[in-house]
């Protein structure tokens, strides 16, 4: 779990984040980049057992780039205007918080998790939906392959040059 990239920190506690799109992508688990719009299930699992005993509030908002929204400085009406989903504060005994949501358009979103009786711990995790993540891996691989071919070709030219100065050994 140490190297788990899908981990959220809420104050002193840890949660695990996973997104699923059963219709589009079957059992594949996503982290902060959900590949497509449409029906999505997000599950947050409490890693620390303390989280099972304290109320947790969850909010999904559109990422407007204005951080003040979720840091509580803005007034509630502004927050509500960008809120897409709100789960009021509640104790989750199983330690698992499932959220089902239908993302209608691609874009950047933020999840806000507030824990504790007074909402003393908060966590903010940005994620994207339906935004093609440019994966450079494949280009690196293709470039590597072409370089390998070129490298071998250069090497072969050297070998040929070595046998050309003819030593006519019977």
């Amino acid at each position: 779990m140490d190297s788990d990239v899908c981990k959220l920190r809420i104050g002193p506690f840890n949660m695990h984040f996973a997104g699923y799109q059963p219709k589009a992508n079957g059992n594949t688990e996503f982290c902060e980049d959900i590949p497509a719009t449409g029906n999505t299930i997000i599950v947050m699992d409490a890693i620390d057992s303390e989280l099972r005993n304290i109320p947790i509030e969850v909010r999904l908002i559109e990422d407007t780039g204005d951080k003040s929204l979720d840091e509580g400085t803005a007034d509630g009406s502004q927050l509500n205007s960008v809120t897409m989903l709100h789960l009021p504060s509640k104790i989750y005994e199983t330690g698992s918080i499932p959220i089902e949501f239908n993302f209608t358009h691609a874009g950047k979103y933020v999840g806000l998790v507030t824990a504790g009786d007074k909402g003393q711990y908060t966590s903010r995790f940005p994620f994207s939906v339906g935004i093609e993540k440019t994966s450079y891996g494949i280009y690196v691989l293709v470039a590597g392959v072409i370089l390998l071919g070129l490298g071998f070709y250069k090497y072969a030219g050297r070998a040929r040059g070595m046998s050309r100065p003819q030593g006519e050994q019977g």
Partner: protein
Amino acid sequence: MNKNDALILQSAELSPQAAQWSRTFDYLIIVVGAFLVWSVTYISQLLLAGDWDFFIDWKDRQYWVLITPTVTIMMAAGFQAIFWKLFRLPIGATASLLLFLVGVWIVRYHSWYGMAYFPLSLVIPGTCLMSAIALDAILVLSRSWLITGMIGATLYGLLFYPSNWVAIAGYFQPVEHMGSMASVADMIGYIYPRSGTPEYIRIIERGTLRTFADHAIWVSAFFSGFVCVFSYYIFWFIGSFACNPKFVAVGTRFKSAFGGSGKPAAAGESA
């Protein structure tokens, strides 16, 4: 005939007439070579790794990915050594795997489908053909069996799985059957019964391979590449050894059967 061909004939000091005879000889050797490469590759692979090749429900992540390349590279290396050492022809591996693939499909049709009524989906073969082409190409470019063994053989093992996955991935979709999950491949193996081949006989992954973040196959592919290096070297040496044109002197009684002592062995130990 292009300029290079003419240069080769000139360097070989062959007259047009001799070149003509030699070309006839070439065609005959192509035929003999094709039959030989085909049959020797086939019998070697058949009884060392045949089961994994026969059935779709043997194509697992642990053994199929490891054993098939390790075995097919044997004859690929052996024939590569013969053709390269004697004639600088980098075609041994490709010829071996291409003819093997052609033969496999013939047998799948004539025998599994034609005689025992099995659907072809049960007996989809795997192939190391892409690996073999890469192996030959690297031999040309490196001019060295040492480098080919290091880079080419590793690549040979690594390429096997992805170059086959494109063909058979669909067989590993999940299906629910009698309340448990199975892959489509398992189902094909279950539905079309083989009385002599009970399920437990499959030599396949039975445990879990929770390594490399569940990328079990790539662990096998890497290991396969590693074993292929040794397999390649061993069979390169066997192929080289097989090219030894040695004659052992015969006794005088044997010679007398052909009219006395005869000429001294003409084609001696020159290579």
